[in-house]
């Protein structure tokens, strides 16, 4: 088929393309562009996977989709549109998650090249492992705004996606969120937690009430606050926020008075907190600032106007009503999922974040800005996606031509560097990190935890969130004792036992494997009395982190730092997983560890 017009490529490449089979993972901005290039070039066999449906905000760059396609499967519509460019190629579309038993190692093995056009780290990690296991070259792509990158990953030849520890996702201490916010983002995180407490999936780590276990609040002055109503966990003992709200029938005024009045008064009683900070000002529903303001002329999008506190309260009341009505319509036990594109959900978070910001004397933000922050939106544009996808397909051609050694990473810079370069290739392939806990011949990693406290359930979470496994099985090295089974029911009865109780001790090694990913890693347990949760210990060079993160050399401490797949967490809205590359004076690219992947995070709360 490629020889539609002979002579465009040399014979070797023409032949290689005609016999190739390519998998494209993701049909978003970059995926659409990649698919177009492949189809036009005449790649005869292509499969494309994407679980998403089309949203109107995709249309400025995902050019295979038009307005009439909104709500439909990205993979399917992309296939149909691309076939109109060249009906002679064969495209199979999967409206599905790539993380599924249906796409095992043998599935991956049928392709010559896999091309990633994903928007989240979990899926990228997974495809990385599948390609390592299947020993298939993977071309990994990403863009963020004007910038982008294309990177080849090939087992044994290059570093893999997980060779370098990634900058941990930004987290905020729980006490900052609950007691002492100082930036708009703290209030936004709090507002999203409040949404989940009231309407979403209740998560004990997302408590929104004053945290009396705040170490800063301790001491004599704070003792008055630590009254009989608090329990040892630091949470004010009472009904769940949801139950309380339901009892008041989600009365906006009552909710408001509790959240922005009573709770703030309670915080004020924790006097130690305010010795060096400006204390918050509780609000009264009946005396809200901005009530009598005349609306000023606003230029710009309506969403870019910052609401007054009074307006926020109105929006709070209206969105509470709407969300409660939505919740009531659902079957018992069901819950809402926060979505930045859902009007009431976004209104609610904007209003709550701004009301709280006002209370704590933090600048208020517009709905437009809050949507970016709460929704982790990384701006995406057609041109950067087109460039990155074009480079990716040219790289795929080089691989097929047998020039894989020449396929070093290429970075699209937002502005030219001092040598005038806009696309900057690395001089050579970056070799694998021999200590990588994913692609090393014998992968190994340490797990620091308090064996007396960490339960088997926590351990499972550590393997899933920390090691990005989907269905881990674990046995004790040398003994063959099954600690954890991915078969439902087999080890569940031990879930609440601590590691010590099931006989694991300091220095003991577990062989942990994930059947789907065909990945096994040896995990050494390290007793650390002070570790409240768990933390991975890698031999790889720790990335240079800011002072805040320095205490946590790897993936954070509460086991919740990686975004979890599934509906409860919003996904990033872009094709992004960028590495920002710094160059030294000569324009040589500075290698890791200075190199960092920047990824807008799903915010996560650490325990204090």
């Amino acid at each position, binding site marked *: 088929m490629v020889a539609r017009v002979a002579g465009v490529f040399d014979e070797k490449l023409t032949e290689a393309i005609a016999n190739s089979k390519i998998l494209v993972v993701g049909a978003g901005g970059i995926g659409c562009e990649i698919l177009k290039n492949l189809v036009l070039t005449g790649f005869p066999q292509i499969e494309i996977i994407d679980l998403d449906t089309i949203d109107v905000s995709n249309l400025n760059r995902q050019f295979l989709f038009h307005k009439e396609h909104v709500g439909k499967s990205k993979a399917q519509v992309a296939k149909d549109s691309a076939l109109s460019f060249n009906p002679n190629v064969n495209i199979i579309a999967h409206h599905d998650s790539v993380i599924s038993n249906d796409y095992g190692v043998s599935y991956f093995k049928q392709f010559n090249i896999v091309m990633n056009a994903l928007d989240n780290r979990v899926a990228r990690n997974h495809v990385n492992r599948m390609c390592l296991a299947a020993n298939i070259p993977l071309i990994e792509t990403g863009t963020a705004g004007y910038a982008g990158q294309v990177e080849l990953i090939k087992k044994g030849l290059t570093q893999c996606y997980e060779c370098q520890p990634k900058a941990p996702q930004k987290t905020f201490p729980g006490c900052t969120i609950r007691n002492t916010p100082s930036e708009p983002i703290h209030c936004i995180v709090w507002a999203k937690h409040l949404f989940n407490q009231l309407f979403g999936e209740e998560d004990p780590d997302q408590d929104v009430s004053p945290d009396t276990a705040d170490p800063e609040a301790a001491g004599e002055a704070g003792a008055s606050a630590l009254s009989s109503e608090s329990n040892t966990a630091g949470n004010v003992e009472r009904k769940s926020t949801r139950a309380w709200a339901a009892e008041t029938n989600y009365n906006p005024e009552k909710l408001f008075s509790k959240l922005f009045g009573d709770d703030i008064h309670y915080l004020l009683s924790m006097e130690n907190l305010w010795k060096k900070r400006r204390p918050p000002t509780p609000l009264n529903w009946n005396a809200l600032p901005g009530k009598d303001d005349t609306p000023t002329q606003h230029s710009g999008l309506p969403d870019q106007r910052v609401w007054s506190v009074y307006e926020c309260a109105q929006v709070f009341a209206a969105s509470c009503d709407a969300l409660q009505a939505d919740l009531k319509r659902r079957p018992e036990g069901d819950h809402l999922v926060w979505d930045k594109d859902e009007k009431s959900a976004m209104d609610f978070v904007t209003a709550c974040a701004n009301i709280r910001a006002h209370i704590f004397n933090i600048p208020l933000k517009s709905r437009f800005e809050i949507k970016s922050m709460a929704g982790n939106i990384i701006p995406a544009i057609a041109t950067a996606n087109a460039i990155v996808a074009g*480079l990716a397909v040219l790289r795929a051609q080089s691989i097929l031509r047998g020039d894989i050694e020449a396929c070093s990473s290429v970075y699209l810079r937002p502005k030219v560097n001092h040598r005038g370069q*806009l696309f900057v290739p690395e001089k050579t392939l970056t070799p694998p990190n021999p200590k990588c806990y994913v692609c090393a011949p014998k992968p190994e990693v340490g797990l620091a935890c308090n064996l007396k406290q960490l339960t088997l359930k926590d351990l499972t979470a550590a393997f899933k969130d920390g090691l990005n496994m989907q269905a881990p099985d674990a046995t004790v090295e040398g003994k063959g004792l099954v600690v954890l089974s991915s078969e439902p029911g087999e080890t569940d009865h031990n879930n609440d036992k601590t590691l010590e109780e099931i006989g694991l001790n300091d220095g003991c090694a577990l062989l942990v494997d994930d059947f789907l990913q065909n990945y096994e890693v040896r995990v050494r347990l390290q007793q650390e009395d002070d570790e409240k949760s768990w933390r991975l210990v890698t031999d790889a060079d720790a990335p240079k982190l800011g002072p805040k993160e320095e205490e946590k050399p790897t993936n954070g401490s509460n086991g919740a730092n990686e975004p979890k797949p599934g509906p409860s967490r919003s996904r990033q809205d872009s094709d992004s997983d960028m590495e920002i590359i710094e160059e030294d004076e000569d324009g040589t690219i500075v290698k890791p560890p200075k190199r960092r992947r920047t990824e807008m995070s799903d915010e996560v709360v650490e325990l204090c």
Partner: protein
Amino acid sequence: MVENNEMELSEAEAEQYDRQIRLWGLESQKRLRASKVLIIGLSGLGAETAKNIILSGVKSVCLLDNEKLKEIDLYSQFLAPPDKVGENRAEASLQRARALNPMVDVTSETKSVDELPDEYFTAFDIVCATGLKQEQLERINNVCRDSNKKFLCGDVWGMYGYMFADLVDHEYSEEIVQHKAVKRGPDDTEKNARETVTITVKRRAIYVPLQNALSADWTKPELRSRLRRGDPSYFVMKILLRFRDEYNRNPDPAKRRTDTEILLRMRDELVKELSLPVGFISDALLTDVFGTVSGAAAVVGGVIGQEVVKAVSQREPPHNNMFFFNPVKCVGFVELYGQ
């Protein structure tokens, strides 16, 4: 050049352009919406450029081409359906171009540029030309320049490509992000309280016309020293433009062998003419210049599209004045010629 940018965006526009407004701001989007763009040459590169510009949300795009859609175009030209081979390329592209963004007014023109009067070109805010001969490019560039209209041109031959820009006297704003430490309260102990402040600076860039850039004097020491960087992309462009002028066509995949010989001979002549180091322009660069490879068209069309957005929105520094994509090294870079 920018007309009425006071009108507010509609809700539909705000929704569709949400992600890019978050990147380049509302003001840029309004300027885009007021701009009229002419795209000459609906090859693969023309189609890629048109796609990017139409998606960005300009006021109007006119597709100009007097050529017929050929089989070879289908390798990279996704706006024209395969069953329209033999029809006019601009007209064949119209339907899909419009479907990309119904908010943009897309039209076509089937006359050759030589038949069109000067005033035709100056009715647009910016002209992007591809597939033309040097003489035609220079004429349109000069016509635009005299009316203070912006001009870009570019080509993709096989995997190789270039772009030239003449934005005449271009004023733009650039955002510079500065970090400063902030304190909240009298004795703030929050260690990470930092604020980023974005300041906007006004800048100006002066451009030269295409004929200056194409007749760069390589005997001058400042250009001679550029040879040390070792990238021959500028000369590859010169050879391919000469080929087009001389043979009235691009290198033809069906004549891959004979055309390669011609290209290598033209290369040797240019090396002699400009006293370039022997072997400076490798054979490898001149063997992948047949047809239009889709990936390369996407890359160069992406760059041209972005430059059009920068030029009409008058935001962020545009490239001054030539961009080259060297597929052998997979490097893309900007150099200034003719000044």
